[in-house]
């Protein structure tokens, strides 16, 4: 790595292209592997050969945020000021306050930004505004915060446009592809509970008529396994992808509708169970699982409010608990007595 010296010690110069390890790192993060340590050192970085007239861009020390920014500054001479957000992305960190007014002011002072550049502009990503107060930064450092676009790909256009974002740049999106990218994290995120549940129900399945017989468990368990796996995949993968296409507003209700469709498909292929009691028990369990997983997806979206989610949970969390309990009780009756 090369450095620029003569300012405040050595400032590392970073490239604007991705190496194989950057790409592998990004894929791993999307699958929740090593997600908790994907960070870079906070501080000042250089792109190209910046000088006193170059722009200063503020970023988080989550490596994925930093990588998006540096990639989109290719061909420019720029400074990047990385705040210490504990390895968390800009928006979430701004919500927690780590990407915030105090941290920004402290980094501006620590890295002597007023000596590094001759102007008084500092470009902060728009989503950072949740934690940063532009007028406070102005009064304490004299720097004018210019809120840049949500997507790093719009940065060059934003600068050319005299530091103004277009209405489109300011609007957060949640496209098919963006939702699809979240599915692996959902899939891996709840996996330990799913495996625990499968193991527990498998052991219970071996107790047909109160006699432990592992063979009867193996012979029978494919039915519950297909039902529970379908519910799990529906909640973690299908739900994020289909989110805007499912009618009704409450996520839990959307999940319930999705679960009903899944149950009907299983019923059609003769995989929903053998007796009425068993079929209804899976229907209840699956409805609760998909509805709950769907409700939890509120946190991954870009448009749910705290007031809204609280309202949703008041109605739907008890519903999910009741459905799940009824389903489990019926299933146990089926296993032990039918």
């Amino acid at each position, binding site marked *: 790595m090369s450095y620029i010296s003569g300012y405040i010690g050595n400032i590392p110069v970073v490239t604007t292209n991705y190496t194989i390890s950057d790409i592998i790192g990004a894929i791993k*993060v999307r699958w929740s592997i090593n997600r908790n340590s994907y960070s870079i050192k906070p501080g000042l970085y250089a792109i190209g050969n910046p000088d006193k007239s170059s722009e200063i861009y503020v970023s988080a020390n989550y490596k994925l945020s930093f990588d998006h920014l540096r990639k989109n500054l290719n061909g420019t001479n720029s400074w990047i000021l990385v705040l210490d957000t504990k390895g968390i992305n800009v928006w979430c960190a701004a*919500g927690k306050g780590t990407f915030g007014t105090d941290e920004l002011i402290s980094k501006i002072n620590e890295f002597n930004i007023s000596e590094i550049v001759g102007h008084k502009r500092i470009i902060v990503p*728009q989503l950072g505004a949740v934690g940063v107060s532009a*007028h406070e930064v102005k009064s304490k450092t004299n720097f004018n915060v210019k809120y840049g676009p949500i997507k790093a790909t719009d940065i060059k256009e934003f600068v050319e446009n005299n530091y103004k974002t277009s209405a489109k740049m300011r609007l957060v999106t949640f496209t098919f592809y963006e939702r699809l990218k979240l599915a692996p994290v959902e899939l891996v995120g709840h996996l330990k509970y799913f495996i625990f549940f499968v193991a527990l129900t498998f052991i219970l399945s071996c107790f047909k008529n109160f006699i432990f017989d592992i063979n009867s468990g193996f012979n029978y368990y494919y039915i519950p396994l297909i039902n529970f796996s379908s519910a799990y995949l529906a909640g973690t993968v299908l739900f994020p992808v289909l989110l*805007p296409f499912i009618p009704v507003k409450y996520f839990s209700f959307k999940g319930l509708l999705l679960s009903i469709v899944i149950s009907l498909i299983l019923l059609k292929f003769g995989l929903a169970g053998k007796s009425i009691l068993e079929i209804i028990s899976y229907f209840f369990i699956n409805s609760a699982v998909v509805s709950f997983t769907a409700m939890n997806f509120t*946190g991954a979206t870009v448009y*749910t409010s705290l*007031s809204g989610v609280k309202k949703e949970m008041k109605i739907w969390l008890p519903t999910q608990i009741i459905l799940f309990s009824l389903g489990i009780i019926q299933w146990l009756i089926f296993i032990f007595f039918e």
Partner: protein
Amino acid sequence: MKLIYLNNVTTLKLNSELCTGCSMCLIVCPHNVFSLINKKSVIENKDSCMECGACQRNCPENAISVTTGVGCAAGIINGILNGSNTPVCNCGSGC
């Protein structure tokens, strides 16, 4: 596709008497909630508000108030388990 969650739930309020029309709220809002009419900000798309609080924090006149927090069911459950009335994030890094 426009994303709207529940209607009539947001705690967002704007005191237009204090507003000077600086349009910071229009600049920071990720959901295009505000618009400028006769040099004053107005809440135009109220149900699009996700209570992120960027407008409140960047209003130099303190004309905006909103109860902020993350709209995350897992965070709310985690908060309840920790005896807190506000969401507590538990998703590890990244968010």
